[in-house]
């Protein structure tokens, strides 16, 4: 029997398999950031050992950095100490750091791909669950805890149990106003926030093939929201074209050799999946979430489920969720008032996302009572946006273009949504308090978020498109 894409990459990275236990998996690239690495460095220092392969690690500061006045010292003491600890640890262990002020600084899952560090066929880890993003390039990429960060630092390996395999096929053509974020929110609404736990998920089908790399990253990014160990898409010409010429992409002969290998990275026709799901692209509408996990999504023209539509044993959690959100079962979602719009995060802060928003809002202005934050994914995205004049479009629309970082996606820095306020967000999680204690998050695509910014209410973006 043939192999899946996952199996081809996995098998090539297994150092050994323990009887009745996990495999020792070799890791090619390790991204680190300030929040989940300090305790790992402490562990190494306690053992008196140095990082084993520092050249295979890339560091940045993103989770806990301000998104205004980045040239000034960080005001909040604990945040500053954490960012300084990263700098010191990287210096001591010989790790490349793209810290604040560096032209490559940015959200770890944005900079890896844009610098050409992320490549097909690799194993990639980071102490961040959205590491699944990198799988869009046809590699095995997954989030790990700090103990595992320490393992990779000490041995470049992890103990991993091979997950089951699932393929999600999306075929057909997307409707007007529907983008990749809608695809992944639609899948989540279908299979739930735990629908892929225990699986590595490969996304396939003609609708996936037609997407740009940025759009593919949005989908793989949120595979963790289904519980998946990782998400991946087989590399193709779109992938190769994206990587070619980037800073750390292979050059010359090395490029030819890499390309020849990358072209072998696809699932064999007779490869077997433990589970397979089929979705028609035509069935997908612009999506929005109403609840407190990313699986609680509906078409923007739809309504919050009524109690009769909810499984008996899920009713308590459902009611708790609606109470937090200040919504009633059966409510229409369209027309609900919005207080904040956040366009950013490792899900949707790439240049294509900003272009999409700029294209839509050009010549329009935000609604009076809405605050709109645009947080680019990296210094390079920020520079490109300015180069293209996108910053001017945002300024004229009354949107605030901030500086790169994770920002209001997780509300770890000062970018928080106040309690009780509604925020349409292009990020990945609508958990209670995620964007600030008491904040109410509605996840949507950059287009749907931009539409809400203009009208001040939840809007079906299709009604505003020509």
């Amino acid at each position, binding site marked *: 029997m043939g192999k899946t894409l996952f199996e081809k990459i996995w098998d*090539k990275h297994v*150092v*050994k398999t*323990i*009887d*009745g*236990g*996990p495999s*020792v998996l*070799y890791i090619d690239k390790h991204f680190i950031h300030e*929040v989940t690495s*300090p*305790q790992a460095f*402490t*562990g190494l220092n306690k*053992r008196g050992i140095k990082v084993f392969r520092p050249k295979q690690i890339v560091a940045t500061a993103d*989770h*806990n950095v301000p998104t205004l006045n980045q040239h000034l010292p960080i005001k909040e003491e*604990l*945040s500053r100490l*954490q960012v300084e*600890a990263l700098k010191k640890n990287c210096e001591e262990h010989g790790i490349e750091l793209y810290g604040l002020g560096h032209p490559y600084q940015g959200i770890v899952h944005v900079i890896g791909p844009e610098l050409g560090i992320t490549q097909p066929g690799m194993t990639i880890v980071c*102490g*961040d*669950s959205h590491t699944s993003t990198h799988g869009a390039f046809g590699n095995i990429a997954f*989030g*790990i*805890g*700090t*103990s*595992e960060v*320490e*393992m990779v630092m*000490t*041995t*470049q*390996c992890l*103990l991993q149990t091979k*997950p089951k395999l699932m393929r999600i096929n999306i075929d057909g053509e997307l409707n007007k106003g529907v983008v990749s974020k809608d695809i992944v929110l639609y899948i989540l609404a279908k299979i739930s*926030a*735990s629908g892929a*736990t*225990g699986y590595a998920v490969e996304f396939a089908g003609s609708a996936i093939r037609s997407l740009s790399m940025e759009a593919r990253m949005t989908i793989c990014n949120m595979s*963790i*929201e289904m*519980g998946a*160990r990782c998400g991946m898409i087989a590399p193709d010409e779109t992938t190769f074209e994206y990587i070619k010429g980037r800073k750390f992409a292979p050059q010359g002969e090395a490029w030819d050799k890499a390309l020849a290998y990358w072209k072998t990275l696809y699932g064999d026709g007779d490869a077997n999946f433990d589970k397979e799901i089929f979705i028609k692209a035509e069935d997908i509408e612009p999506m929005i979430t109403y609840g407190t*996990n990313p699986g609680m999504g509906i078409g923007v023209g739809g309504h919050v489920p009524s109690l009769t539509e909810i499984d008996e*044993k899920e009713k308590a*959690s459902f009611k*708790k969720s609606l109470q937090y959100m200040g919504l009633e079962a059966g409510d229409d979602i369209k027309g609900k008032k919005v207080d904040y719009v956040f366009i950013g995060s490792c899900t949707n802060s790439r240049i294509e996302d900003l272009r999409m928003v700029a294209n839509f809002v050009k010549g329009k202005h935000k609604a009076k009572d809405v605050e709109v934050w645009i947080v680019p994914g990296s210094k390079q995205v920020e520079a490109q946006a300015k180069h293209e004049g996108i910053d001017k479009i945002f300024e004229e629309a009354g949107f605030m273009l901030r500086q790169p970082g994770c920002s209001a996606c*997780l*509300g*770890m820095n000062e970018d928080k949504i106040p309690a009780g306020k509604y925020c349409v967000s292009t990020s990945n*999680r609508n*958990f*209670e*308090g*995620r964007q600030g*204690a008491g904040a109410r998050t509605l996840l949507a695509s950059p287009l749907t978020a931009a539409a809400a910014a203009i009208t001040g209410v939840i809007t079906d973006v299709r009604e505003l498109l020509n």
Partner: protein
Amino acid sequence: MRAFTILNSRFVPLPIENIDTDQIIPARFLKSTTKDGFGKNLFRDWRYENDDEKKPKTDFALNQSQYKGEILVAGKNFGCGSSREHAAWSILDYGFRAVVSSFFADIFKNNALNNGVLPVTVSEEFLKKIFQQNNTSTLSIDLEKQTITIDKTGEQEHFDISDYKKTCLLNGYDDIDYLLSLKKEIEQFETTEK
């Protein structure tokens, strides 16, 4: 890492599904560079009104004196979301040694195991039976036998754990010790496979 063999304790019930790691420990408490002291902020925003320790929410189990013990029992898909190991650290620091649920998110499960906190996966039916117990009821978890028992009724279920992880937990070994012992094999792999 502290070894885990047998645990007999009362339990704290949280019959809520999809408890994510942002609830277990909100992001604003992740600014520490050590592993200590996270227990006081465990379930912070479910425990206190307006982030005020003087205003505990009386309807939350951790604030109800009738519930105590070293076992946390929660609804399915426990620990989903962020990979923050701070979630496992806060559970351990608060005083829990085991978490029981019908379903755990992958990353949390690994993080818990790497800190000597045992995730025990039981069936939906068994979980329901535990939630139906009163607050003086105790549970017994035997890692060697891989069983969990409701002491009052004697009802018991077997739970899964890999042989490797079981050995680690029974002896208090961690993965890093094991991986370091493979250094030569890893270097060999690098020269032949890369």
